[in-house]
């Protein structure tokens, strides 16, 4: 497996190497550089630029325009209604619930998923027997498609024929229907989210741990630091960039969460498991209110942009 991936990488690695001989060391003039990069620019930039414009920039601008219309998606938008769509969004209890759920997902990601991923990463990154196997097992859920994971867990939670039913039967308890209970559905969804994504964050931390020079830990050990001290004073500070990255992915993942929720609960019961994107889908697209849906999309876009830039400024200030 490893050999295969190495051989797969080798042509790329060869390309990245500087050309042989002294030619590479010679300073090249601007003209020469343009001469060499020009054809690449002409060949590769327009398709990418065109695709990016057509598939990203234009839809974003269009959504911004539609958000000011009452439009079903048929014909062209004609009923301009100003900010009313945005005003409406705030009046939906489901939107507040969605926003709250997104924050809840972020909180759980930070308070449960992150420490769990970090803890497991420190365990399976060391040289204990079976570490590779465990690493693979923990990472497996992440490989699964979101929809597939949602369907599997829907079956697990099913109170009629699912695992929950079987377990309740063994224990002699009435079968629980967690996904049908507005008070418990979100908790059940959170369990699936943590199960699905902690493996990914664990991998991030393993990569981060790999990057730490063992000499530092050895030096700390020689200086008499115990395991906990070494972790807190050496490992953790050196892992900060990875933790920042993990937090970033958690937040963005929460804001994008959709395909796990749909097979599990579709945002129900009673909108208790809506996220911003499922709200957009069920209150915009499914109701043929493209204008309203666009307005939700704009709100989501603004949240993402504010977070992405704000977080970059705050967390990566010193990087």
């Amino acid at each position: 497996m490893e050999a295969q991936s190495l051989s797969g990488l080798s042509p790329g690695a060869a390309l990245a190497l500087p050309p042989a001989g002294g030619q590479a060391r010679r300073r090249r003039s601007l003209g020469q550089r343009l001469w060499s990069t020009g054809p690449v620019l002409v060949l590769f930039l327009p398709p990418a630029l065109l695709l990016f414009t057509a598939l990203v920039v234009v839809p974003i601008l269009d959504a911004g325009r539609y958000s000011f219309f009452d439009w079903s998606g048929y014909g062209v938008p004609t009923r301009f209604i100003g900010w009313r769509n945005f005003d409406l969004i705030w009046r939906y209890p489901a939107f507040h619930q969605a926003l709250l759920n997104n924050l809840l997902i972020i909180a759980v990601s930070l308070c449960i998923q992150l420490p769990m991923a970090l803890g497991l990463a420190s365990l399976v990154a060391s040289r204990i027997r079976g570490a590779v196997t465990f690493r693979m097992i923990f990472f497996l859920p992440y490989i699964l498609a979101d929809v597939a994971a949602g369907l599997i867990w829907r079956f697990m939670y099913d109170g009629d024929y699912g695992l929950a039913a079987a377990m309740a039967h063994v224990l002699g308890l009435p079968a629980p229907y967690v996904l049908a209970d507005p008070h418990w559905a979100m908790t059940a969804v959170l369990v699936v989210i943590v199960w699905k994504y902690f493996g990914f964050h664990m991998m991030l931390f393993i990569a981060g741990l790999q990057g730490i020079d063992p000499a530092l830990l050895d030096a700390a050990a020689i200086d008499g630091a115990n395991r906990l001290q070494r972790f807190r004073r050496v490992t953790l500070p050196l892992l900060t960039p990875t933790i920042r990255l993990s937090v970033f992915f958690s937040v963005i993942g929460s804001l994008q969460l959709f395909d796990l929720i749909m097979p599990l609960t579709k945002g129900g019961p009673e909108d208790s498991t809506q996220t911003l994107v499922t709200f957009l889908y069920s209150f915009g697209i499914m109701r043929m209110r493209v204008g309203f849906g666009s307005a939700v999309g704009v709100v989501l876009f603004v949240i993402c942009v504010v977070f992405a830039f704000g977080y970059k400024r705050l967390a990566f200030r010193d990087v």
Partner: protein
Amino acid sequence: MRRINAIPTSARLGRRSLIAAAALGAFGRHGFVTPAEAAATMIRWLHLEVNPQILKIWNAAAVEFHAQHPDSEVRLQFLENEAFKAKLPTLLQSPDAPSMFYSWGGGVMRAQIETGALRPVQMDDAWKARLNPAALSAFTSDGKIWGAPHQMALMDVYYNKTLFKKAGVAAEQIRTWDDLLAAAKALKAAGITPIAVGGGDKWPIMHWWAYLVVRAGGRQALDDAKAGRNGGFTAAPFVEAGRLLKQLADLQPFQPGYLGATFPQMLGTFGDGRAAMMLSFSGSYARQAHAAADGKGIAHDDLGLFAFPGVAGGKGLPTDTMGGMNAWLVSHTAPPQTDAFLNLLTSLKYQVETAATGIYMPSVPAANSAITDTLLQQPAAELAKSTYHQNYFDQDLGPDVGRVLNDQTTALVAGSITAEGVAKQIEEAWKLSH
């Protein structure tokens, strides 16, 4: 130290080829149906049908039409249900717009009419006369006919005869809502879950409320509400329907976990014999069998159905019915031959063939005699003598208000909103979108 074999964190992705959509149009001009010679006129027919029996009939109609009109060709195009709904608005504005396509009527059709995406069907008197008048009127707007109805459905209460017998309940005696409540109590007392619903999909609950509105308010209720008379959707029949549904919900008659159950799960609960009743469409014998855990479900002889019970003091007649109607709508770019083809497709001959499959009820009542399944004969007879046939509320009121209906009626049953609250929410949603 052993190298840790983690994921490649800084994998060099290289330059990714962007070659992608070259295979588009690979299906070329090889039609699904008619011979390959180039025809002057192309009728593009967009449908959602997956049943091979129905497709066989449609293909035969297309071939016959081509034989009669050698210069015209009919081409069937399939889209899956959800993809169809998502793509249709864009498709109708493209040069490849379908000539005729599937419709549930109601609010979506009105949006299509308003934007000029459709043109009326040129229907002669003989054609009109053979169609079910309720279906025809569902696709009539501003005095023009916008679609050729081809199939119909009716909602009935299905029941499990064995479970009814066990609880000592006689289906023939359930004529009013109070009878139904009494039956639910008797079933519960016998340790049987009275009713299966699909609260996860919501609309299976909404139909209970909607049918109660039809029974309580009759033909006039929905028309008045749409026109904003008597307080719109806050008028008495709507509140009354909510109150009655709440009475039922208070008995806790639904299967455990009903709020998360989908429509197929509801069918499965009923098909497995874990609930005694369900409100469902005509043709639900096959549906419940398919959804049951053993793939067989309730035996044909053990399955019964009765018309939705009446409401004391209600304005609706017991012979008023509720169910779906489907038609082929014609887009504004459709060739004139489309109408002739629709005439052929909804002719008695093809309607008889459709009815004989036992899958759909025909839109031509004369074809009813071809129905052999007793469980389909009964709704067909109800439909034939229907005094007023109401389209599904969520289709009639459009996807926007329809979803509000679904949300609020489910919340009512779950106990988080009152009957008055439901009516108010619907009225607000209706006002907002009109």
